[in-house]
């Protein structure tokens, strides 16, 4: 067996059945072994696409996503995807080829210090120095990627080691079952007391809930206490969107009810959330009157941004279940419900032009609850978060921590590969779409039935909105009115496509798209001046949100 064959054998035994990548010189031995391997490899059209597809695969399926690239430019092209996985705690294993051991350090052709480059954007990275290290290194990579707060791991394998012959065989050791439930700690008792004494508690739900497989427990806690709840972008889907005490997303583009409730609360219970600046606004003003209970798996998140009165580390599912206690908060519940009613989204909108929030709401009503929605970054992303009902966290994939444009399409490809029976929709923007537009080639090659809803404002809309609000309408480099003909572009890849421009077309177009068997692109033309509301200006308290119906 060669080192390359050994790598694939170990991957296979870790349950890897699909991976995403792009070949090149230093990883040719591995690609040669892939030729005979039962693992399905998907050729993406850019290594960034491969990394984002691995992220989409991992997030939609809760398995490890695997991506491959050659040395030098192949490896550097993975970096943005790894940074995204690092910020959003996604278990990804990236394997890069490296120049041969003898050539290393000599500025050889396509040599780059990928370990040096990836230190800051991976949970761990390792360069293999001999073939015997391979099984343990890969095993460790999977264990690290999946343990505690999850994240990406990079393994760099010199070409000579991929080629080296070895009689090492590999049989994965059985992992001992995790025995014993954690004791209810002192911290939970303190937390319970805070909750019992609170008049105005709020549950602040983050992406950690889905990742910790604690959705059921968090929902049980909500049902047992009827506590009002709010969600981060990455937490969407953790709370049942139909729960009568759920107030929606908080933060810069959160709902008015969610933001005001958090500012007024006297106890903020953060579960798997990290007080990101897009959530808190001006941190000194955030939930100023509240005590804080912080549940997290990562010790380093405790007191990083906001000091917690009580911190509960560890297994979220067990800990949140133990928190359930009798609360008497009727007036507060009623107040929150009233706000939710008073500030509910409005979809009436003058004129014939398509109103993106209304279109996304219609799409949400038409699509099955099991649909996976991915987004790119910008106004369309915020509208998606606001107006699509998400029923499980693994059904909404958006680049949260990094906000990386170009995420939507490749992430949708990865999600569809992991969940072939579910509908997968990528909501993209005309700017973001062009950042990984080459992945249309991947859709075509494998006939992947991803639906693309391209919200086309002929602008880098979110940046344009900020220019309008904060830079005196100086629209520097945000005009995309010379976009390509997207329908023709899709057709060049054999992908069915349609463009719509008026409200009356929305229903039929969405139904046609959802009923179509293969990949589909629906281009939706909207007014270039439409804005996302509400908006909390940066470094401002969350209650000071700007609102307007039309710019």
């Amino acid at each position, binding site marked *: 067996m060669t080192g390359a064959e050994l790598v694939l054998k170990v991957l296979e035994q870790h349950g890897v059945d699909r991976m995403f990548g792009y070949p090149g010189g230093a990883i040719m031995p591995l690609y040669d072994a892939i030729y005979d391997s039962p693992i399905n490899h998907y050729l993406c059209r850019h290594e960034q696409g491969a990394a984002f597809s691995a992220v989409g695969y991992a997030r939609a399926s809760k398995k490890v996503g695997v991506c491959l690239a050659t040395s030098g430019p192949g490896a550097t092209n993975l970096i943005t995807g790894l940074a995204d996985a690092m910020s959003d705690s996604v278990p990804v294993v990236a394997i890069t080829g490296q120049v041969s051991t003898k050539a290393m350090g000599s500025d050889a052709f396509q040599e780059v210090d990928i370990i040096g480059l990836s*230190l*800051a954007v991976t*949970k761990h990275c390792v360069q293999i120095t001999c073939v015997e290290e391979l099984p343990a290194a890969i095993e460790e990579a999977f264990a690290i990627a999946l343990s505690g707060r999850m994240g990406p791991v990079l393994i760099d394998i010199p070409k000579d080691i991929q080629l080296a012959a070895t009689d090492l065989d590999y049989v994965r050791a059985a992992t001992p079952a995790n025995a014993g439930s954690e004791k209810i700690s002192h911290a939970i008792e303190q937390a319970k007391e805070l909750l019992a004494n609170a008049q105005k508690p709020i549950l602040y739900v983050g992406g950690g809930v889905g990742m910790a497989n604690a959705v059921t427990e968090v929902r049980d806690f909500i049902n047992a206490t009827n506590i009002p709840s709010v969600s981060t972008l990455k937490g969407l889907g953790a709370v049942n969107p139909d729960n009568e005490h759920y107030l929606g997303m908080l933060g810069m583009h959160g709902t008015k009810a969610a933001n005001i409730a958090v500012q007024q609360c006297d106890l903020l219970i953060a579960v798997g959330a990290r007080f990101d600046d897009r959530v808190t606004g001006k941190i000194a003003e955030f939930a100023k009157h509240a005590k804080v209970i912080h549940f997290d798996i*990562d*010790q*380093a998140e*405790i*007191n*990083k941004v906001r000091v917690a009165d009580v911190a509960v580390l560890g297994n979220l599912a067990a800990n949140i279940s133990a928190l359930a206690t009798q609360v008497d908060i009727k007036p507060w519940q009623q107040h929150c419900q009233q706000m939710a009613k008073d500030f509910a989204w409005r979809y009436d909108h003058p004129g014939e032009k398509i109103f993106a929030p209304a279109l996304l709401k219609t799409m949400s009503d038409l699509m099955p609850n099991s649909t996976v929605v991915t987004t790119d970054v910008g106004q369309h992303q915020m509208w998606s978060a606001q107006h699509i009902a998400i029923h499980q966290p693994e059904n909404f994939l958006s680049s949260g921590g990094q906000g990386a444009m170009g995420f939507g399409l490749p992430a949708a490809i990865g999600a569809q590969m992991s969940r072939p029976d579910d509908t997968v929709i990528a909501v993209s923007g005309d700017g973001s779409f062009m950042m990984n537009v080459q992945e249309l080639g991947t859709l075509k090659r494998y006939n992947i039935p991803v639906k693309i809803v391209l919200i086309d404002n002929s602008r880098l809309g979110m940046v344009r909105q900020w220019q309008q609000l904060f830079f005196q309408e100086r629209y520097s480099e945000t005009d995309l009115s010379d976009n390509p003909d997207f329908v023709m572009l899709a057709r060049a890849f054999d992908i069915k496509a349609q463009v719509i421009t008026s409200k009356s077309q929305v229903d039929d177009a969405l139904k046609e798209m959802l009923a179509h068997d293969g990949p589909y692109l629906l281009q939706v033309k909207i007014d270039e001046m439409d804005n996302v509301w509400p908006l909390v200006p940066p470094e401002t308290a969350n209650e000071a949100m700007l609102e307007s119906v039309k710019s």
Partner: protein
Amino acid sequence: MLKYLGDSGMPQHMFTITAHKNPLVMERLLQVVRYRGFTLHSVSMFPSDVEQEVNVQLSVETDKSVENLKNQLLKIIDIKHITVEDRSRQKIIA
């Protein structure tokens, strides 16, 4: 060998770190100290009596929470153990 100047008026903290012997660990350690906004005052690495282990002594001057830095450093997979000592109260001029 170590100078505890502390002239900035900010408390000085000494981190004593036990790490897995991996050439990458120093690089990552220094990166985290810088990225998290701490200024390095001194650093030394020593071989350990334990096989596959190294010891690192590192000091920073800061009025920020060193507990936060310690927790960030502990996330480096190869770091096994950290103790932090406040040196400002026992200032020694070498």
